């Protein structure tokens, strides 16, 4: 009996609704700044849209997916009802309220600061208040994940924590620590100014604090997808997980290395010392390790499924995989996009190569490919996998699911590859329009048109996705077998203490944060003369 079904469904539906709306805004943006749009593109409207699109896609959609999936994992892996259901609903309510509160000033053009809201630009206070409420709602989820695991461990002393729950809680702790940076920035720097208590703000310190959150947040987004890789995919395709232990190592490494690396987002900034930039580059290289480990483990797990189906040969086994299964398509597409996106990420992290593409459209292309592509396609897969258990009804549109996933994959490639290309041409990001008649810009016109058509495929895919989920609510009821996560090839008898808890990794994470971020932050706090006048935006008079 899945007690928290309605809770999980609520999270997913709000997430996907926000996703669809934000996607439509995104496609509109692609249209108006492309050569296809011959009218006047009012920049103020454009930036309202970018703020809404970014905030919804970065703060609302993935948070709700992680929370919903997290609640489901608690029940399904620990095999007991979620403790604190009312708190969970309160958190959900805060999140929804925060979203609405934030979107009102944004839609009125009073807070077009973009989801990165770099001071000293300051928008309407309610935008920031809304974001704070969203984050606080997610912190309730973090607490519930921790509490539920603690209660289970108390009742099951010495038993290995199931891998899905281990990863789930690791993701929750990662998010809690990660969100501190932006929370400090908003609560201590921005809101006092937005509410009129102060009129100056340290722009450099704000960027450092935001960088604390900015990179690790993508690993928070990534956790549900990676949990799906390890715990859903092998079972769904009829195979086994190659190694439970390696999975834990991977998630532990993410917990340690995701956060103290954010300064690679501000390589070109003047307020951080070059030594710290180098240090962050070193540790950013480390965060590619768990991804590389995951690639091996999941590929090996997929190979197991193929060989169980009679696949032979060194690479010939690929043909024996269940390609008719949407989950198989999802993981394959995700890995392809992860490969390209990851390579792009390695370029971004390599200090000198980053100078060629910082703040160009390459960056936009990169994170749409890796997040919108590799990660979000697994969100679709998670929804498809859980939906029958959430609704109690069959989700039978297998062909439509495959079409939807194909559309998303092809669309994302068509959107992001030209985007990377124009970034290499040094075309800057966050511009509302371009003069395509100028010879310096003309080479990118065709690429921008192509990305627009790719976006149409994405829009079709998203609409199809919603349609499939809606149909899932109106299908006939079925009795389902008990939900199973993937089983490892070799049964887990004993897990080292280090990989059955988080104390060691949290200690390392916090220790590294102190070393990597301590001085850069404290230094700016202690340097006089760094606070500059706040510049209000969206002043309509």
């Amino acid at each position, binding site marked *: 009996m899945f007690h928290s079904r309605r809770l999980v469904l609520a999270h997913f539906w709000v997430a996907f609704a926000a996703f669809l709306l934000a996607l439509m805004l995104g496609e509109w943006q692609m249209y108006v700044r492309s050569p296809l749009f011959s009218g006047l593109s009012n920049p103020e409207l454009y930036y309202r849209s970018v703020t809404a699109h970014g905030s919804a896609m970065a703060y609302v959609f993935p948070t709700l997916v992680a929370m919903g999936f997290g609640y489901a994992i608690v029940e399904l892996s620990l095999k007991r009802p979620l403790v604190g259901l009312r708190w969970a609903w309160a958190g959900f309510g805060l999140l929804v309220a925060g979203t609405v509160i934030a979107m009102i000033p944004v839609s009125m053009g009073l807070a*077009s600061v973009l989801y990165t809201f770099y001071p000293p630009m300051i928008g309407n206070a309610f935008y920031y208040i809304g974001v704070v409420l969203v984050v606080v709602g997610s912190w309730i989820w973090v607490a519930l994940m921790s509490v539920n695991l603690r209660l289970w461990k108390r009742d099951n002393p010495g038993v290995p924590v199931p891998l899905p729950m281990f990863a789930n809680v690791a993701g929750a702790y990662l998010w809690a620590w990660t969100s501190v940076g932006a929370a400090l920035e908003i609560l201590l720097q921005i809101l006092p100014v937005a509410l009129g208590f102060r009129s100056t703000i340290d722009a450099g310190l704000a960027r450092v604090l935001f960088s604390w959150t900015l990179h690790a947040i993508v690993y928070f987004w990534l956790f549900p997808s990676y949990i799906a890789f390890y715990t859903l995919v092998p079972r769904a395709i009829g195979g086994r997980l190659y*190694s439970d232990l*390696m999975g834990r190592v991977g998630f532990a490494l993410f917990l340690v290395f995701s956060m103290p690396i954010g300064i690679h987002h501000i390589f070109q*900034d*003047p307020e951080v010392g070059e030594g710290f930039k180098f240090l962050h580059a070193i540790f950013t290289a480390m965060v590619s390790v768990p991804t590389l480990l995951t690639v091996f483990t999941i590929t090996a797990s997929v190979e197991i499924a193929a060989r169980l189906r009679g696949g032979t040969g060194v690479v010939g086994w690929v043909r024996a995989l269940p390609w008719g299964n949407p989950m198989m398509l999802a993981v394959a597409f995700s890995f392809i996009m992860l490969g390209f996106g990851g390579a792009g990420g390695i370029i971004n992290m390599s200090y*000198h190569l980053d100078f060629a593409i910082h703040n160009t459209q390459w960056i936009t292309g990169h994170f749409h490919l890796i997040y919108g592509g590799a990660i979000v396609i697994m969100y679709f897969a998670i929804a498809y996998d859980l939906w029958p258990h959430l609704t109690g009804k069959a989700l039978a549109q297998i062909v439509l699911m495959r079409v939807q996933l194909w559309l998303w994959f092809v669309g994302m490639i068509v959107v992001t590859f030209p985007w990377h290309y124009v970034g290499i041409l040094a075309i800057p990001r966050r*511009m509302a*329009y371009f003069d395509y008649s100028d010879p310096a810009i003309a080479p990118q016109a065709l690429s921008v048109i192509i990305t627009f058509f790719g976006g149409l495929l994405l829009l079709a895919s998203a609409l199809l996705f919603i349609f499939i989920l809606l149909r899932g609510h109106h299908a006939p009821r079925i009795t389902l077998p008990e939900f199973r996560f993937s089983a490892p090839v070799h049964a887990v008898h004993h897990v080292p203490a280090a990989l059955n808890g988080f104390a060691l990794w949290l200690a390392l994470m916090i220790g590294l944060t102190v070393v990597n971020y301590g001085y850069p932050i404290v230094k700016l706090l202690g340097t006089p*003369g760094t606070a500059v006048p706040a510049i209000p935006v969206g002043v309509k008079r």
Partner: protein
Amino acid sequence: MATASEHSEHVAARAEMRWVYFVIAVIGLLLVMIAFTSLHWVMMPAQRIETVNPSTLHLAGEFTEDNLGTEANADGSATVRLIAQQYSFTPQCIVVPANTPVTFRGTSADVIHGFIIAGTNVNVMLEPGYVSNFRTEFKRPGEHVMPCHEFCSVGHAGMWAHVKVIDRDTFFRQSLSTRRQSCVPQ
């Protein structure tokens, strides 16, 4: 049967460890490359941070209007000083000599801006309150666009400057009569 299972576990673990060593080697190579390039191709030299008051740039100090532009230094290098503001760079047309070490020094008068010089590796963030430094060398004469690449509010899309790379000797000859050079039409 236990031994067969243990044996396969060992095989699996060994394959895994081989991959781990491979990953460590790849990452190690990346780190060595980063270290090597940091020692040899310096764009932003390690230096103490410089602060400046964005509201008084036009009154006194390094970034007053008549001090902006490109200066020929006694040691044969050049220094470009610029300000970013909503929504233009001053000077909006920058002159630099080719085959000369050039240092860009800049700051912002209001919000965070940044610029990239297309076709080069010049990529700089300009933040109010701080002075940015960037060192480079332009290989050949030509013209480049230089857009602002950090969102600076509604007019961001209109913030494009230009860079003219001119022959080194011409630049130094002109510097004898012009204290700060730029290609802004007067």
